[in-house]
């Protein structure tokens, strides 16, 4: 009624700040992006400037299967994080393992491609500008995949030891950001190397 004391809403909004883990990961991603941008610029700048063969068109084959594997691993890691969020650790482990496997297939595929390029096509990092820029750019990305695989493996081992539970959702989620980043970079690298540069 009119005599009841006026109640003001709670003084101020609760004090919340962005998660430091997320911010930290986004910073890492920003820094890594800058490194990739420089390597991409070098790659694009040197397209068609090699003085000797072989040229990209002669030796590069489009790695469709590899690409599909890596990109679908983004989906599986997302599903894994969602499963963990809901406390379904078994599903989490399954999808996490799938991610690991798909990433490993990608890395193995890159290795096979390099083997073919070096031993059949005669393209090494010192052959010509294409070789220098190609191995540097794709190698830099492969290195990031490798780093991601190490992280995935550690989490996998911890999960098998039943040390990863619902409360670690944020940790795992932040790690998945890195993995998504590696995938996005591959889209750009793929477009540059296999579509534009070929």
């Amino acid at each position, binding site marked *: 009624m009119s005599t009841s004391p006026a109640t003001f809403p709670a003084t101020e909004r609760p004090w919340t700040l962005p998660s430091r883990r997320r*911010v930290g990961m986004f910073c890492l991603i920003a820094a890594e992006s800058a490194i990739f941008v420089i390597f991409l610029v070098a790659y694009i700048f040197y397209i068609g400037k090699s003085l000797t063969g072989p040229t990209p068109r002669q030796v590069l084959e489009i790695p469709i299967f590899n690409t599909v594997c890596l990109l679908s691993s983004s989906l599986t890691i997302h599903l894994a994080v969602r499963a963990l969020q809901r406390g379904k650790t078994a599903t989490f482990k399954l999808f996490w393992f799938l991610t690991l496997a798909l990433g490993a297939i990608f890395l193995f595929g890159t290795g096979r491609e390099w083997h073919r390029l070096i031993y059949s096509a005669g393209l090494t990092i010192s052959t010509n500008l294409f070789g220098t820029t190609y191995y540097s750019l794709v190698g830099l990305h492969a290195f990031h995949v490798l780093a991601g695989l190490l992280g995935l493996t550690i989490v996998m081992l911890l999960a098998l030891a039943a040390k990863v539970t619902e409360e670690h959702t944020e940790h795992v989620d932040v790690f998945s950001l890195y993995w998504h980043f590696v995938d996005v970079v591959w889209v750009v690298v793929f477009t540059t190397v296999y579509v534009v540069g070929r």
Partner: protein
Amino acid sequence: MSSNSVPIPDAIDSTKPTSGEAWLLEALHEWVITVDHKKLGIMYIVAGLFFLLLGGLEAVIIRIQLLVPHAQFVSPEVFNRMFTMHGTTMIFFVIMLILFGFGVYLVPLMIGARDMAFPRLNAWGFWMSTFGGLLLYFSFVGGDGLYGAGTAPDVGWWAYAPLTSRAFSPGHSTDYWTVALLVSGFGSVAIGANLVATILSMRCPRMTLARMPLLCWLYLVMGALLLFTITPLTAAQLMLMVDRYLGGHFFDTQAGGSAVLWMHFFWIFGHPEVYVLVLPAFGFVSEIVPVFSRKPIFGYPIMVAATVGIGFISLSVWAHHIFTMGMASYSNAFFVLTTMAIAVPTGIKIFNWLGTMWGGKIRYELPMLFCVAFLFQFLVAGLTGIMLGSAPFNWQLNNSYFVVAHFHYVIVGGILFAILGAFYYWYPKMTGRLLNQTLGLWNFWLLLIGFHLTFDFMHFAGILGMVRRIYTYEHGRGWEFWNVVIGVGTLFQVLGLSCFVFNLVWSYFQGRPADRDPWDGWTLEWATASPPPEYNFSVLPEVKSARPLWDLKHPEDPDWKYQ
């Protein structure tokens, strides 16, 4: 001063272990394994000062060699090493380390946090950066790779291709330079990420972004810039490694590569780097000037906007370092315009500091003296910067001592003076003792006189055609007199900085004890003990305005009423 009336609970002093040797080992162990932001901050600063001595020694050797024509104080090879090491050391291992030190020390205190967002990453960054510097200096011993081909790096601090290729730089000297900067670069990126995460995610209750001390804003932008600045250099260094070790062709013109690409990549790093260095200096000035003018900072929102603006524009001005390389006219025009544009937010800052002092009750204590000198000198540095930023003028004077004078005006006259102001301002907080006033005045005046003798007259030598990095010169070019003046100025600077270093050591043991708030400050670091306890604040503060200590000291007239 009303400092002791501040009702914030104090820290309990932890007891120190006794007995000589055991105590020393324990203390050493504690400093090596520490992840505490205050200890790491001090370690950063001490490491930076150590490298300052080395870099300063190299500068002295350079000036002695150039004092008179046809001097043979050192050999040409040694001279090349000296200017390379001087530049690399001063940028990466002196100014950056000291700024990181102040950053990791002050930012958590100022935002009312107990530590950085990632304390262990903080320690990692420190050790990476410092080991990078030690690695660089190890090259004097270990760089002798091939037939006595070289010891320390001698390719200049920007290491243009193709001078760095295997053919022109045999041995390992260039590799020491590359790896040292790679390693310290990882440390810098870690610090950048850590600063951003700390400032965004660790602020004490109710400290909104608009209530942060300006210093934190400047470190936020600096941290973000580090992420985009150091990494292009990292990428370029990786390419150089590929060229040198795997036979790549990135910068190999004989295989179609481009030396110009290195210039672009280096300066994409190099120019924002200047702002990485100068933004924290702006931060120091923005904290010191209001406290010693007894007025809140003038135009806080504009200062923030100018800071962020500088951050963005600084990423698009790099090619004004390489006008003489011969770019298309529209590229020249673009970089001239962006360079002119960045003068606008910088000018806004200068006016805001003046506006803060205007009508204030100015106390000319030592920190303020250094800031006033900073204002004047940084203004001159900015004006010569605008001169050099216009392409035709640049074509005339690029690579001359005019340029050397300009950027030393920025780095010594601007940044170093602001850093010294910061030392005099925050030393009592870090150690609990004030720096000695008399020694401080000697430091200030000797350095000021020396600075102006050296770098004012370097402009003249440059206009008269003296090129940078030359080993020696002929009689009768009109440079003799200026080089003697420059040399005398160097002596004054050495004396001034010696006073400073001596003051640091002497005051640590003998200085006048400082209470928690010797300057009657307004930001949170003055609310805790000097030196602060390990956990900084026994109760995390809750702030209502940009000057929380003012609110506590003046409950009858708090800031938050007007914000």
